[in-house]
């Protein structure tokens, strides 16, 4: 009994440790290749860029866990930022009200995604593809296709706290990661998510209504996209209706690098966060080495495929190491 408990405890972080190892290798590599890599500027760039992607990747992890996909997060993020922008600029709303407005917008989009796809059994790929267009259109509509400049009024979220060196946004994002991982591994909701991703019919036949939980997952993904929008807006200090284009793919890439299965039932929030870090470090490092944008994208693409390939052979590799 204790032995098997030990085993299960070793097995889980093996994947996390692998990701941490990859991360360390990347940092050492870029550190030796570029003399500027270990600098405050690099650190600040990284820290400012990741909160939005992190919270969106958390939502995406949950969605992939139940064997769904959410393509709309990038657009929903832009729409939420736009809503916050016009609330502050055009309606002189207090920041708190604007924040709540942005979050509610995200929640509404996510709930719509979840309800339509779960209730009428339409693949979430199609529903969220539709929402991708709707939310992007909405973002252009509310902003009149103009970037709204908010200036310093929202900067307190995204800029580093004096003395700490990290922003409130980053701290919030890390809190989201910790809470989400706790929800996944300790709660009923987490258990149901994994079960739905594994065998939805068995869940239904066990007397659990999958509809509610599926809608909840998409609603959360929308809410987190809204939160990501707030982080993005405070970082750019403006609401840009063009922001977040292609962000859904970056989020899916991070989650997949973290080893979450696209077919559902298996995944980890912490590993998704490590996936976000790997992508961010790679982007920053390659930029410092003066790698051109096209080459950067090609390299990023290859890393994603390599990560999935590695994941495919993770279990045999794990057995190999355990036997030793």
């Amino acid at each position, binding site marked *: *009994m204790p032995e*098997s*408990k030990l085993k*299960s405890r070793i097995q889980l972080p093996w994947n996390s440790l692998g990701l941490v190892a990859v991360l360390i290798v990347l940092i050492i590599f870029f550190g030796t290749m570029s003399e500027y890599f270990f600098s405050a500027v690099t650190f600040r760039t990284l820290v400012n860029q990741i909160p939005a992607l992190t919270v969106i990747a958390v939502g995406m992890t949950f969605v992939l866990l139940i064997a769904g996909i959410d393509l709309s997060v990038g657009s929903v993020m832009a729409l939420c930022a736009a809503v916050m922008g016009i609330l502050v600029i055009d309606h002189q709303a207090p920041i708190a009200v604007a924040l709540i407005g942005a979050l509610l917008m995200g929640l509404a989009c996510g709930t719509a995604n979840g309800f339509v796809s779960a209730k009428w059994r339409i693949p979430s790929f199609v529903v969220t593809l539709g929402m991708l267009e709707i939310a992007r259109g909405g973002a252009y509509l509310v902003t009149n296709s103009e970037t709204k400049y908010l200036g310093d009024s929202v900067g307190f979220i995204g800029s580093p706290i004096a003395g700490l060196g990290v922003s409130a946004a980053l701290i919030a994002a890390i809190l989201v990661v910790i809470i989400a991982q706790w*929800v996944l591994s*300790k*709660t*009923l*909701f987490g*258990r*149901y998510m*994994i*079960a739905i*991703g*594994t*065998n939805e*019919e*068995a*869940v*239904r*036949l*066990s*007397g*659990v*209504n999958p509809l509610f939980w599926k809608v909840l997952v998409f609603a959360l993904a929308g809410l987190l996209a809204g939160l990501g929008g707030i982080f993005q807006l405070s970082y750019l200090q403006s609401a840009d209706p063009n922001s977040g284009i292609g962000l859904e793919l970056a989020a899916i890439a991070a989650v997949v690098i973290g080893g979450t299965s696209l077919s559902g*039932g*298996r995944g980890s929030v912490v590993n998704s966060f490590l996936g976000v870090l790997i992508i961010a470090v790679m982007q920053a490092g390659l930029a410092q080495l003066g790698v051109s944008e096209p080459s950067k994208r090609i390299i990023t693409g290859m890393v994603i495929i390599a990560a999935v390939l590695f994941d495919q052979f993770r279990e045999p590799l794990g*057995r190999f190491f355990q036997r030793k």
Partner: protein
Amino acid sequence: MLLRIKKLNKSFVVPVLKNLDFELHEGEVHALLGSNGAGKSTLCNIISGIHTADSGSFEYCGLPYTPNSLQAAEALGICMVMQELNLFPTLSVAENLYFRSMSDRFGIVQHQAIQRRAKKALQTVGLNYIDPAQPLSQLGVGQQQLVEIASVLQRPIRLLILDEPTSALTGPQIDLLFEQIIQLKKQGIGVIYISHRMDEISRIADRVSILRDGELVATKAVADISTDRMVQLMAGDESTSIDMKESIDQSHLPNNSILLKVENLTRRTKNQSGGDSGFENISFNLNAGEVLGIGGLIGSGRTELLRAIFGADQAHKGCIRLASDGFKTRRIMKSPADAISHGIGMLVEDRKSQGLLLSHSVSKNISFAILDSLNKKLGVVDQSAEQDLAESMSKKLSIQCDSMQQPISLLSGGNQQKALLARWLAIDFSILLLDEPSRGVDARAKNQIQALIRELAAMGKAILIVSSETQELLKVSDRIAVMSNGRLAGIFKTTELSEEKLLEASFCFYSSEDNQSKLANARI
């Protein structure tokens, strides 16, 4: 001698086959018997080239033989019909039959030609009324299994491996299959036959090899060994044969305390081929402390009836009434959650696709239906209570596993089934619906499950059980309701029912004024 294997060894991390010797003569039906995990499937997979042996010598038709791929084995005339179907539901029957030879050399499918050939092939397995152009998915599982067998019979075979070929077949279909096997024997073809059904083995096999934990326990002529002895050998020395008679005697019906009334329950749906499926006007009462068996052919509406009572599918007409409110409310269960809240649980027919959560551990599978009651606060699962539940259940049902944290996917079929049963024993139920509870389960686990069913009845629970094995129904049921073509043919006391009578009742609504195709559809 067709096949001779000496000192075969094979390990998957742990040894699965140990120094195994095996021989097969021309024209012999050689049965393989053993619990799940005894090594039967591994042996067959090695013979048919799917896996390669670690060591051992092979001789096939007098020549050394090194099976290293399925294709190589097939080229030598070794074919296997697997337990799980390897067919394409959306392709036509003919395309399935000739999957690898359906096109000309330019890759154009020769529909006319293969359909003509398919007609003949289908005749060999008694499916002459099937249109080869229709999609395979319109056929029943039993018919699909026969298509798979027909497709193998088309090839030039010398050695045929059948892995549980009858698990989805009904009596007449089995008769037909056995006729084919006898034909093969006459042609000198050797057959390796895996089955858990003892009566089939004594009927069709010449010799039987019994495996236990990867070792050959005995090879005997079937005529020289009794079925009891076979079970003993399979189970090993600590064989505990459960005396069913005794447990049945304990269960006298507590004076007519009805738990469930089913009244004119109806659910009729058209299947893709336009035929009716489902059931109509089913009425019966279910008593506390009673096991009510549901007999009938596959496709007679038995599973559909159970699913409607459980709310997995909604009934169209009629209702059920429950003792809990004095039979006042007319109910149609809207969802499984609805049924569970009224104390009804159901073990589903296909455990892999509808029951198991393969990514979860044994304990998480057991606790799943009552997870919301293991909620500490904030939706946190009380893992120690969950562990206690799983351990007490696994003790009660003697589930064999390394630990409760072991992934359920690593357990044998019998132990998976027991874990699913445990899921339902964990809920506060008064009525349990069991759909084929011992399908694909080894003989020992089957005995344990059947004993458990009687035990539950003795505790005052009401059990409704569907089984395609007549023997099982006769063994565990107090009464048997026989369904025929979606209707209730009658309810009989088990003591007054013979196998012949049950079969007769199963057919009674097919042969009347109903059209002939319906008859054919249901029978095969």
